[in-house]
C-alpha cells in the first residue's frame, strides 16, 4: 500500500510541476509566442546558437531551438515537418526535390574549407596541391609525400619519404560534399568512379582512415603525422599552429590560398548563373583569384507553413539572417569564418525565395 501512496504522491508532484510550467508559459503577453525549431548542419550549429540568443522579432516573441544532427537529418526532418528549419551544407538533389515538391532551398551564407596536412617541420609552409593529385592520394596511386607529382608542384621544398595517410569523414558531411564536388570537377577519374555527395564510394586505400566530425579529423591528424584531410574553415582557430594547409590549383591553373577574399571571388564568378531555386554548386570557379572549394549554406524549409504567424516569423528570421546589420554582421560571422552572401545574391535569390513562403489557409 505504501508504494501506491508514493506513486500517487509522485504523480501529483509531476502534475503540479507541469501545471506551473504551463502557467508560466501561457501568462498574458502582448506578443504571440512562436517557436522556430532548427535541426541539421553541425557547421552552422555554433552560429545558429549565437543567432538564437541574440535574435528578437519585431512582431512575435520568437524562440529558436537548435540541434546539431547533420545536414541529411536536417533535410529529412524539415521534409517530415518535425522541424521548421533544416540547416544544410548542401542543396537537395533533383531527385529528392521531385520526390518532395514544395521544399525551398534558401541560400544564407558561404562557407569553405582547408585541405590540411600534418607534415612535421613543413606545417608553416603552404604546399601547392591540385585536384588530380589529391584524388591520387585518396585512391592510393600517390603513396608518398615526396612523390614526383607532388614534388613538381612544390619545387625547392624537401618533402619527406613518408606514407601519406588520407583521412575522410566517416559520417555524412557537407564538408565531404564540398570536397568531393571539387575533386569531381577537377578530376574525371574521381567524377566517374567516386562522385560527390555527403558520403561517397570511398576508394580502397589501406592507409586511409575515417573520423567523425571536423573535431575528430583534427584530433586524429594532430596525433598522426603525414595525414591529409579536409577541414571546414569554421575550425580555423583549432588548426592554427598545429596543421598546415594547401594552396589549391584552381580552374585557371593558379595556386590559390583559402581566404575570405578568394572564397568571395569564387562565389562572385557564379553570380549570374544562380537559378531561381538557389540550388547551385560553386566549387571549381573560374578566375585567377578564386579558391576552388566553396559552398552556399542552405536553410531547407517547407514552402507552405502550418499557420500565418509561423510563416511570418520564419520570413522575418531568414531576412534578418541575411541582413548585413542583422545575422550576417561581422560580429556574428567573423568568429566562425563564415562569409555573408553578396547583396546581389540576397536581393535576386534569397529574398524572392523567402517571399515564396506561405501558409495553409
Amino acid at each position: 500500500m505504501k508504494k501506491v501512496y508514493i506513486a500517487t504522491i509522485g504523480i501529483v508532484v509531476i502534475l503540479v510541476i507541469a501545471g506551473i510550467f504551463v502557467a508560466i508559459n501561457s501568462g498574458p503577453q502582448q506578443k504571440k509566442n512562436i517557436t522556430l525549431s532548427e535541426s541539421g548542419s553541425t557547421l552552422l550549429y555554433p552560429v545558429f546558437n549565437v543567432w538564437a540568443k541574440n535574435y528578437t522579432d519585431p512582431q512575435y516573441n520568437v524562440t529558436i531551438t537548435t540541434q546539431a544532427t547533420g545536414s541529411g537529418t536536417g533535410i529529412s526532418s524539415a521534409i517530415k515537418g518535425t522541424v521548421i528549419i533544416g540547416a544544410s551544407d548542401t542543396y537537395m538533389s533533383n531527385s529528392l526535390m521531385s520526390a518532395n515538391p514544395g521544399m525551398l532551398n534558401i541560400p544564407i551564407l558561404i562557407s569553405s574549407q582547408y585541405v590540411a596536412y600534418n607534415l612535421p617541420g613543413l606545417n608553416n609552409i603552404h604546399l601547392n596541391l591540385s585536384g588530380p593529385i589529391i584524388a591520387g592520394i585518396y585512391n592510393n596511386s600517390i603513396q608518398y609525400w615526396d612523390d614526383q607529382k607532388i614534388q613538381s608542384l612544390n619545387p625547392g621544398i624537401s618533402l619527406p619519404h613518408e606514407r601519406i595517410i588520407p583521412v575522410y569523414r566517416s559520417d555524412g558531411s557537407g564538408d565531404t560534399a564540398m570536397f568531393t564536388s571539387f575533386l569531381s570537377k577537377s578530376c574525371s577519374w574521381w567524377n566517374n568512379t567516386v562522385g560527390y555527395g555527403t558520403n561517397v564510394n570511398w576508394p580502397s586505400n589501406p592507409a586511409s582512415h575515417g573520423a567523425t566530425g571536423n573535431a575528430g579529423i583534427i584530433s586524429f591528424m594532430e596525433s598522426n603525422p603525414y595525414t591529409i584531410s579536409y577541414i571546414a574553415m569554421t575550425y580555423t582557430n583549432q588548426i592554427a599552429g598545429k596543421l598546415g594547409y594547401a594552396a589549391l590549383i584552381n580552374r585557371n591553373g593558379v595556386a590559390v590560398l583559402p581566404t575570405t577574399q578568394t572564397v568571395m571571388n569564387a562565389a562572385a564568378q557564379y553570380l549570374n548563373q544562380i537559378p531561381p531555386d538557389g540550388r547551385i554548386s560553386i566549387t571549381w570557379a573560374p578566375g585567377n583569384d578564386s579558391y576552388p572549394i566553396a559552398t552556399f549554406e542552405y536553410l531547407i524549409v517547407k514552402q507552405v507553413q502550418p499557420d500565418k504567424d509561423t510563416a511570418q516569423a520564419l520570413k522575418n528570421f531568414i531576412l534578418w539572417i541575411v541582413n548585413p546589420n542583422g545575422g550576417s554582421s561581422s560580429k556574428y560571422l567573423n568568429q566562425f569564418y563564415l562569409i555573408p552572401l553578396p547583396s546581389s545574391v540576397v536581393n535576386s535569390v534569397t529574398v524572392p525565395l523567402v517571399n515564396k513562403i506561405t501558409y495553409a489557409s
Partner: protein
Amino acid sequence: MPHKLDKIFYFLTFLISIIPIFLVLMLFSFLLYYSIPSIKYNGLKFFTSYYWYPGQVYLPPVNINGILVPYGSSFGILLFLYGTLITSLIALIIAFPISIVVSLAVNLYVNEKFKKLIISLIELFAAIPSVLYGLWGIVYLEPLLSNFIEPAMNKYLGFIPFFSGNIYSGAGILASSIILCLMILPIMTSVINGSILNFSTSIKEGAIALGATRYEMARLIILRGIKIQIFGAAMLGLGRALGETMAVLMVSGSVFNIMPSNIYSPINTMAEALASLLDSAFMDSTGMNLYALSELGLTLMLITLAASLIGRFIVGLGIIRGFTRGEEI
C-alpha cells in the same frame, strides 16, 4: 475475493510487463520491413562483399531489376561484420583470463577490506560512460600503440601472419579490441565473482581438509565447478562488445571499402557504421541507403540477441545446477 485495488494493480503490472516483449517485436518487425528492398537488391552479396557504396545521390537514380537505386550504389557488410566479430573476439580473449584471475584473487588471496575495494572499483568501471573510454583511447592509447607497442609487436611477433605488416596509425583493430576489453571486464568479472561466492563453502572447505593447496582448490574444484558460469560470463561480455558503438567509433579508424591486412589496420564495425552512415542515407531519394542500413541493423540485432540469449541460457543452467549440488552435501 481479492481487493479491487489488487485487481487493478495486477492488471497494470501485467500491462507494463509485456512492454519489453512488445518493444523487441516492434523493433524487429520495423527493421525487417525496411530491409526488404535491400534484401531484394543486394541478395547474398550483402554478406560477401566488403564494398559499401552509397552511390551518387546527386545523379538521377537508376532502375536495376525493377528497383530504383542511386547510380553506382552497392552494399556489402563483410568489412563491418568482420570488424565487429574480430574486435569482440580479441577483446574476449584478453578479458577472459584477466576476469578469472581477478575473481579468484579477490575471493581466495585478498583480505576482506581490500576485496571490497577491488569489487566496488570494478563495479564503478561498469558505470563509466563509453565515450570516456573512447576519449582515453584517442588521447592516451593510440599514441602508445603506434609509437611503442605496435612496432614492438611487429618486431617480435611478426612471424605470426596477422601480426606483421604496415602500421599506419594507432587507430584500428588492436585499439578497438583493448577498449572493448576494458568495457566487458566489469560484467565478466562480476558474473564470475558471483559464481565463486555462490560456490558451496563446504566443498571448498572439504578440498582444503583433504590437503589441497589453495591453487589446487581454485584450479581443480572451483574453476571446474563454475565452468558453465564462466562460459556464460564470456557470452554476456561478447553481447556487450558486439553492440558497443561510441567508444569503438573513436578508436577504430572508421575505414571503408578495404579489408584489414593485419591487427594494426583500421577497421569499422556494424554498430559504428550504422551510426555514422545514417545522416547521409537521408540524402538518398530512393531510400535504398536507408533500407541497406536497416538490413545492417537487423543483422546486428540478430547476432547480439543470439549471443545474449545463449549466454543467459547457459548462466541460468549453471546457477540452478550449482545450487542443487551445494544443497546435496
